[in-house]
């Protein structure tokens, strides 16, 4: 009987077909290709739900699936490397498939309002891009090995380039698209080296072992790495210690993650990517491109857990990015810019969670963030339609009463983003910070890497501070956009939006309010009720079942966290009080941020307060001069280096070649004079040579050595 798993490849194949249909037949369709995308993503969503139900065990025992479906490079020798395309489905995959297909379905519907109703041209190209984007992200999600993941990772990058640069006739979008492509490509360069390194070292790129009837037929690379660290397997580590080499490989792959997930210092592409159409921004930020990086770390988490150093770096980068991006979001004037920096900041939280061993927290935040960030972007899109594509918040104001559906859903998303109880973001962000806190305390002064606990606490402190900023900039945005009096004529009389905008907003608005309920850890802890569903979902059954087969279960990760990374949980105030105090602190900081925003911008006629920041404002407006220094790196360092290399190439390498050729040219031009064309001369030459030869024979006695 064909089960759900046989249809998993179709989840990605359907949007791919939509891509082809939109591309070639989109112009003959009444909605210019949107129909194909909507039907395909709806199909993907249904298949994803079916897959998730199968994984959950609604249709039988809870299972997982890991198969190589197609071998495109087959090693001939014994033990030679083979490259496969395959499908791996475990609860994490199923959850992510669900998120991606849901968000992209809603984005397709929303695009009807944002693109079709606004009379945009080039729509078949747009819907083809969306289809391919969705397809490549879904393919990335169910990849069962690192190389396949890398290929889809690159496809995602390509699609983001195509979609960010959709309005290619304007000046900004093509340049933003190029920037996004180049910056992420810089990270992917390290990722590619990491992929090659992992294949060479461990001989496989599988995320999880493939089993047949209970026996492992193909080992996974985190498994081999674990065995190598315990001395049970030997791998070629190129002269490094095994631990060091695992760290190096992990950090190389992390390069790709930093690029795609817009983490410091490769975050600069993301704010510029706002040049693309708003639904595309929603898709990039909530479900596809940016999520891909964090998802990759979660996917190969068993590998990262083997290296405490890599974990510490992930945690630090995450915590720092969360604070860094949040501080820039405070001064931005454009709606989408604020959201862009909030995205960077929120992905920083996910990295913080992953780095500190909060696997569930990271996946939880990924889930809730996907919902509320898609909501915020679509809400922003709705506002932008109403404002005739003016994105400056200072030109808005008072939109609350004129577009109530957008206002209330946007408010739900903002409360979730700011982390106000009981909206989604509170539960997940609180868990992220809680995990960082307890693992920081538990590892302080112990563990193999002495600094680890201190670094965790530092990252925690940065994350905690970012909560305040998040609350502030989120509600600054809300107050400026929706409250007060209308500041321009457009805001007085905004253009109404239709069902295709309000529908997705309503779905996501309900989601933003409720999706946090899947893992209410504080409540579960207080009442003793087992309502931490996501935790159970990733934990799997206690005995046997999929975690024993795939070794991607939470049990395994917790063991690794304790045994390999030597990270333990510590409770400075006891278990339940620590949890509550942590939640209270982050909540009060968030509320504090909201209240400050209210007092500064809540009035009927708010004025700018950013001048009070003095010199800091300039720094923040210029994004800490990150762009400037990257341009300087490119122009001041790379260009002269390239020039020098060019000189060397032209002068030395080409010089040798040209020198040899001119020497032979010169001698040739002299020697050809003997070709006089006179038969007599040739005959004379032949005779003389013969005589010479004979003389030589005579002198050397006929034996020439």
């Amino acid at each position, binding site marked *: 009987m064909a089960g759900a798993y046989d249809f998993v490849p179709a989840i990605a194949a359907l949007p791919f077909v939509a891509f082809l249909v939109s591309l070639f037949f989109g112009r003959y369709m009444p909605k210019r290709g949107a129909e194909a995308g909507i039907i395909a993503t709806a199909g993907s969503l249904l298949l994803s739900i079916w897959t998730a139900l199968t994984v959950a065990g609604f249709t039988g025992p809870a299972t997982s699936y890991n198969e190589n479906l197609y071998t495109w490079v087959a090693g001939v020798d014994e033990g030679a490397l083979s490259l496969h395309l395959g499908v791996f489905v475990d609860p994490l995959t199923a959850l992510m498939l669900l998120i991606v297909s849901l968000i992209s379905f809603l984005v397709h519907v929303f695009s009807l309002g944002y693109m079709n109703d606004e009379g945009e041209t080039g729509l078949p190209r747009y819907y083809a891009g969306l289809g391919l984007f969705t397809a490549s992200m879904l393919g990335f999600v169910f990849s069962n090995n690192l190389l396949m993941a890398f290929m889809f990772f690159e496809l995602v990058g390509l699609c983001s380039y195509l979609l960010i640069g959709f309005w290619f006739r304007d000046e900004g979008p093509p340049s933003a698209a190029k920037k996004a492509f180049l910056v992420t490509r810089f990270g992917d360069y390290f990722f590619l080296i990491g992929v090659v390194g992992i294949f060479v070292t461990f001989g496989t790129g599988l995320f999880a072992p493939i089993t047949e009837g209970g026996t492992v037929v193909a080992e996974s690379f985190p498994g081999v790495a674990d065995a190598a660290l315990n001395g049970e397997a030997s791998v070629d580590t190129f002269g490094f210690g095994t631990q060091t080499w695992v760290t190096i490989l992990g950090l190389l792959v992390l390069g790709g993650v930093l690029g795609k997930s817009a983490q410091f210092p490769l975050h600069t592409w993301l704010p510029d990517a706002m040049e693309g159409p708003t639904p595309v921004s929603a898709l990039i930020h909530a479900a596809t491109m940016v999520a891909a990086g964090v998802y990759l770390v979660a996917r190969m988490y068993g590998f990262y857990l083997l290296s405490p150093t890599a974990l510490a770096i992930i945690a630090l980068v995450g915590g720092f990015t969360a604070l860094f991006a949040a501080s820039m979001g405070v001064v931005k004037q454009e709606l989408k810019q604020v959201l862009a920096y909030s995205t960077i900041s929120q992905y920083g939280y996910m990295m913080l969670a992953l780095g500190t061993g909060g696997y569930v927290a990271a996946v939880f935040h990924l889930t809730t963030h996907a919902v509320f960030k898609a909501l915020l972007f679509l809400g922003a899109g709705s506002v932008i339609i109403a404002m005739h594509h003016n994105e400056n918040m200072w030109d808005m104001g008072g939109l609350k009463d004129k577009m109530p559906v957008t206002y209330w859903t946007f408010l739900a998303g903002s409360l979730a983003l700011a982390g106000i109880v009981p909206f989604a973001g509170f539960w997940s962000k609180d868990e992220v910070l809680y995990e960082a806190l307890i693992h920081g305390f538990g590892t302080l002064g112990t563990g193999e890497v002495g600094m680890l606990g201190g670094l965790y606490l530092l990252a925690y402190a940065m994350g905690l501070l970012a909560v305040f900023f998040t609350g502030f900039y989120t509600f600054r945005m809300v107050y400026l956009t929706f409250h007060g009096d209308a500041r321009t004529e457009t805001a007085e009389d905004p253009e109404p939006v239709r069902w295709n905008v309000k529908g997705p907003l309503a779905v996501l608005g309900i989601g933003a309010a409720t999706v946090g309920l899947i893992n209410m850890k504080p409540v579960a802890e207080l009442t003793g009720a087992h309502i931490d569903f996501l935790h159970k979902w990733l934990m799997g059954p206690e005995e046997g079942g999929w975690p024993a087969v795939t070794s991607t279960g939470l049990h395994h990760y917790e063991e690794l966290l304790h045994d390999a990374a030597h990270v333990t949980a510590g409770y400075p105030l006891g278990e339940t009080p620590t949890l509550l105090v942590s939640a209270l602190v982050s909540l009060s900081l968030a509320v504090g941020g909201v209240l400050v925003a209210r007092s500064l911008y809540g009035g009927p006629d708010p004025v700018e307060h950013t001048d009070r920041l003095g010199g800091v404002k300039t720094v923040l407006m210029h994004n800490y001069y990150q762009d400037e220094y990257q341009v300087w790196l490119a122009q001041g360092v790379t260009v002269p280096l390239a020039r020098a290399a060019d000189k060397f190439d032209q002068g030395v390498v080409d010089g040798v070649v040209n020198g040899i050729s001119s020497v032979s040219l010169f001698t040739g031009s002299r020697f050809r*004079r003997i*070709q006089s*064309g*006179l*038969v*007599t001369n040739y005959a004379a030459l032949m*005779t003389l040579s013969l005589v010479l030869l004979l003389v030589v024979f005579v002198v050397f006695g006929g034996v020439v050595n």
Partner: protein
Amino acid sequence: MAIVTEYYLLLSAAVFCIGLYGILTRESALMFLMSVELMLNAANINFVAFAFYWGNLTGQVFSLFTMALAAAEVAVGIGIILVLYRNFDGIDVTEAATMRW
């Protein structure tokens, strides 16, 4: 009383040198052809002389081959000379130097 082989070789060398001298000094293609014939026949003399000296027939058979070859060579040579005459209005080999560098 047989003639000593050395005399044959001297004769052969003399004929060869005459042919060589002709090739090195003459300008007429016909004279060239004749000089080449002389050199070929010098070789023939050698063949026959050595065949006589060793008392086997290999050299004589070879000289027959050489004669056939010489005939063919003359046929080709005369053809070339005809073309030479047509293209350069003469059979002076120093004229035909247009295919050089």
